[in-house]
C-alpha cells in the first residue's frame, strides 16, 4: 500500500538558520507531495524568504536537511538543482543578454533544447513578452523583469518550483496567466511553493498552505484541515485561518515603547478578549461570476478536487 503513496517532492528536516543570535528558521520541518501548489504564508519577518532561499540553496542553513525530489541539497547539490527552479522576488539578470537569450541559456544548461522554440514562444506570448524578446534585460520594467524571471523558471525542466512573491509586480492578466501556467505545472507532476499576500488568489488556487512564523511551521495542510485545526466554522476563509493561527503574535509588529524588541515580541500577558471573528465569509469556490457584473478579479482556474 505504501508503494502507492508518491515520495515527497520536498522534504525539510530540522532546518535552522541564524543571523547572529536571531534564529530566522528554527528547527523547521516540512514534507510536501508532488503535483501540488502550496501557498507559503506568514507575517513579515516570519522567515518566508529565508526559507525559500534555503530551499533554493542560496542560503546555507546551520543545521538541517533539505531533499529535492529525494536528492539531498547539501550532499547531492548538482542532482538536486536539476529538479529545482527558483523565481526570486527581485530578479537580477545579465545586462548584456536579451530576454530570449536568458531563456535559451537556461534551456541549454539543462539540455532542454528539443522543443525550445515552441516552448519559449508559448511562454513569451502567454506573459506578453514576445514583442520584447530581443530587448536587453535592462530595458525591461519591473513587472516585465518579473515575467522574464517566471519564464526562466518554466523554460527548463523541474520538479520543484520556488516562487518568492511572484505576483507582486504583475498586472491582473499576467497573474491569471501565472496561475494557469502553475496549474499546468501541477498537472505535469510539479510542486510549486510560492509566498504571496494575495489571499483570494491563494485561497482559490492552492491545494495546501504552509503557515510559518518565527522560523517555524505553525501548520501545514489544505483549507479544510487548517479550518478544523483552528476550530473555525466551515465558512471561515483563509484570512480567518491565518488570523486565528497568528493571534498569539498580537503586537508582533508594534514597536516597543522602551525600544526593546524582545519585550515587544514576548508579551507578558496573553491577549484579553474573544478571538478575532471572521471578517467576511469568502465567496463560494465554485460560484460563477454574475454576467452583468464587471469582473473584479482574474478568472483563476480552480484546483483539482
Amino acid at each position, binding site marked *: 500500500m505504501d508503494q502507492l503513496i508518491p515520495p515527497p517532492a520536498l522534504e525539510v528536516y530540522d532546518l535552522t538558520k541564524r543571523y547572529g543570535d536571531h534564529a530566522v528558521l528554527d528547527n523547521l520541518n516540512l514534507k510536501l507531495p508532488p503535483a501540488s501548489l502550496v501557498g507559503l504564508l506568514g507575517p513579515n519577518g516570519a522567515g518566508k524568504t529565508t526559507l525559500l*532561499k534555503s530551499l*533554493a*540553496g*542560496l*542560503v*546555507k542553513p*546551520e*543545521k538541517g536537511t533539505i531533499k529535492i525530489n529525494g536528492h539531498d541539497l547539501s550532499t547531492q*547539490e*548538482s542532482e538536486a*538543482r*536539476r529538479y*529545482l*527552479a*527558483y*523565481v*526570486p522576488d527581485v*530578479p*537580477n*539578470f*545579465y*545586462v*548584456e*543578454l*536579451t530576454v530570449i*537569450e*536568458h531563456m*535559451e*541559456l*537556461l534551456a*541549454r*544548461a*539543462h*539540455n532542454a*533544447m528539443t522543443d525550445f*522554440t515552441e516552448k519559449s514562444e508559448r511562454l513569451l506570448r502567454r506573459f506578453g513578452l514576445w514583442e520584447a524578446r*530581443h*530587448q*536587453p534585460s*535592462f*530595458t525591461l520594467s519591473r513587472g516585465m523583469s518579473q515575467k522574464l*524571471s517566471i519564464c*526562466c*523558471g518554466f523554460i*527548463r525542466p523541474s520538479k520543484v518550483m520556488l516562487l518568492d512573491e511572484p505576483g507582486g509586480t504583475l498586472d491582473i492578466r499576467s497573474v491569471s496567466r501565472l496561475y494557469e501556467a502553475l496549474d499546468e505545472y501541477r498537472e505535469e507532476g510539479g510542486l510549486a511553493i510560492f509566498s504571496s499576500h494575495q489571499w483570494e488568489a491563494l485561497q482559490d488556487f492552492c491545494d495546501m498552505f504552509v503557515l510559518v512564523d518565527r522560523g517555524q511551521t505553525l501548520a501545514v495542510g489544505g483549507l479544510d484541515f487548517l479550518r478544523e485545526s483552528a476550530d473555525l466554522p466551515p465558512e471561515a476563509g483563509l484570512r480567518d485561518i491565518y488570523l486565528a493561527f497568528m493571534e498569539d503574535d498580537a503586537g508582533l509588529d508594534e514597536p516597543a515603547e522602551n525600544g526593546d524588541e524582545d519585550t515587544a515580541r514576548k508579551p507578558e500577558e496573553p491577549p484579553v478578549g474573544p478571538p478575532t471573528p471572521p471578517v467576511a465569509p469568502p465567496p463560494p469556490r465554485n460560484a460563477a461570476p454574475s454576467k452583468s457584473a464587471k469582473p473584479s478579479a482574474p478568472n483563476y482556474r480552480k484546483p483539482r478536487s
Partner: protein
Amino acid sequence: MNALLLLYERKIERLRRLAYMYVGYDSGSTDVSEKLYGVYIVILLGLGGLFMLAWIVVNIGKVLSIFTVPLQPFSQLVFTGMALWLVWLVFRSANTYDLQQFELSDLDFLSQSPLSTGLITLVWWVKSFFKRTIGGFVLVCAIVSSTASYLSKGNDILALVIGGASATLFIIVSGGLRWVLGMWKYIPVRRPHPIFGYAVALALLVLVFTPYAPYIFWPATLTSWLLVGRALDENATLTLLALGGMLLMVLAGVLILWRQGRASRLAPALEEGSLGGRFRLAAKVDKASAGEAALLYHLGRRLQSGRGAFKARQAQADFWRGPVLTILLRQGLRLQRLPVTKLLPGVALAVGTGAIAALGLVVLRQLNASLIVQIQVIFLVNWVLLRAGVGGLRRELSHPDMLVNWPVSRLRFSIYYLVLGFITPLVSGEVVLFLALLTGLDKTILYSWQVLWLVLVVVNFVVTLGFFKRGLAKWSGNPLDVPNAGPFALILCGVAWSIAAVANLSTGLLVAGAFILSGLYYVRNADFD
C-alpha cells in the same frame, strides 16, 4: 554655504564611519582605553605608512639600480606617458557621459538646494579627485621622484614631497581640462560635432611624437621634469618656477571652470546624472559590479543611438549544450557585447598578467635579485593573478537567481569559472616562457619555471577555490555581498610561490604539491555547518 557644508558633512561623516569600522574604533565610547586605542591606531597608521613608504622607495631604488635605468630617457618616457594621458582626456571629453557622477541622494538634494551651477560644478570637480586611483597615482609619482633622486644621490625625502605635489597639480590641471571640455555640452551654445573632438585628439596624438611636444603639452613637460628631470639637476629656482607655473594653471582652470559652470544648464547635467546614478545603483557598488555598470552605460547608449547590438541572433548550434558549454556560450555572448575600451584592457590584463609575471620572475632569478625584491614581486604577481582569476566568478555570483537555476552545485560552478579565470594567465605565461627559449635567457631557469608556473597557478586555483567554498557556505545570497578571495588567500599563495621561487625545482614542486593536495583535501572535506 550652509547647504554646501551639509552636503559635504554627510560625505565626510560616511568616510569617518567607514574608517572607524575598518579599525574597530568606537567613537561613542568615553572609556579611556578606547580613546587610547584611537591614539594607538593613529600612531600605528601614521608611522606605519611612513615606514612602508621609505621601505618601498629604498627597495624600488635597489631594483632600478639592478637594471641601471638611465634617468634622461626615463624622464622622456614619463613625459610621453603624461602627454598621451592629456590626449586621452581630450578624446574622452568628446564623449563624456555623466561627468559629475552624482549619487541619487545628491540629486535629490541639489534639486532643492539654492546652490548655483558654478558652485556645484566646482564642488563636484574637487570631489572627483578623491578617488583611490588618483591617490595611487600621486603615491607612485612621489615614489618615482624619490627613487630618481635616490639613484642620483640627491635629497630623496624632498623629492618625495615635490613628486607628490607635482603629481597632484598635474592631476588637477588635467582634471580641469577634462571638465572644461566635458561641460561644454551643457552650455546653451552651438558646439562642434563630437567628431571634431576626435579629430583634435588624433592630431594631438600625432603631435606627441614631434619635437614640438614639450611646448604643446607643457603641463606634462613641467611635471615630468619635476618628477624625474629635476633629479639630474637639482636647481631650486627652476623647481620653484615649475611648481609656480603648475599652480597658475590650476588657478586658471578653476576660473574657467567657474565661468563655464555659471553658463551651464543644470537640468541636462542632473538628468544624465540621474541616469548614471540609477545605473550605478542598479549595478550595485562593488568592484565586480562596477564593470557591469560600465557595460550598462555602453549598451544603453548604443541602444539609444540606434546602433543595434541586440538584433535577433541566430540560434547557436546544438553543440552548445550542458552546463560547461553553455557557460562558454554565455561568455562568448558577453565578449561580443563588451565595448572595445573594456574588452581590450580586460584581454591585456588577462594575457599580460601571465606573460609579464612569468617572464619577470625568470629575469629576476637570472639577475640574482635579492630575496626581498623577489618576494615583493611575487606578492604583486599573486595579487594581480587572484584578481584576474576571481573576477569572472564574482561577476556571475552577483546574479544569484541565475546561479540557482544552473544545474550544477555551487562548488562546481566555482570550479568552472575559476578555470576560466586562471586559464588565460596560465597559457600566456607558458607561451612566453616557451618563446623565451629563443632568447638568451638561461634555459635551465626557463625549463624549471615552465613547470613551476603551471603548478603555482594551480596552487592559486586550489587556494581560491577553498576560500570560495568557505565564502559561499556563509553567503547570504545577497548580490551586494559576493564572496571573495581575501588577503589570507594572497598570503597563502604568496608563501607557496616564494618558497618555490627561491628554492630549487624539486623543493618548489614538493611545496606546491603539498599546497595543492592539502587544498584539495580542504575543499573536499571541509564542512562549515
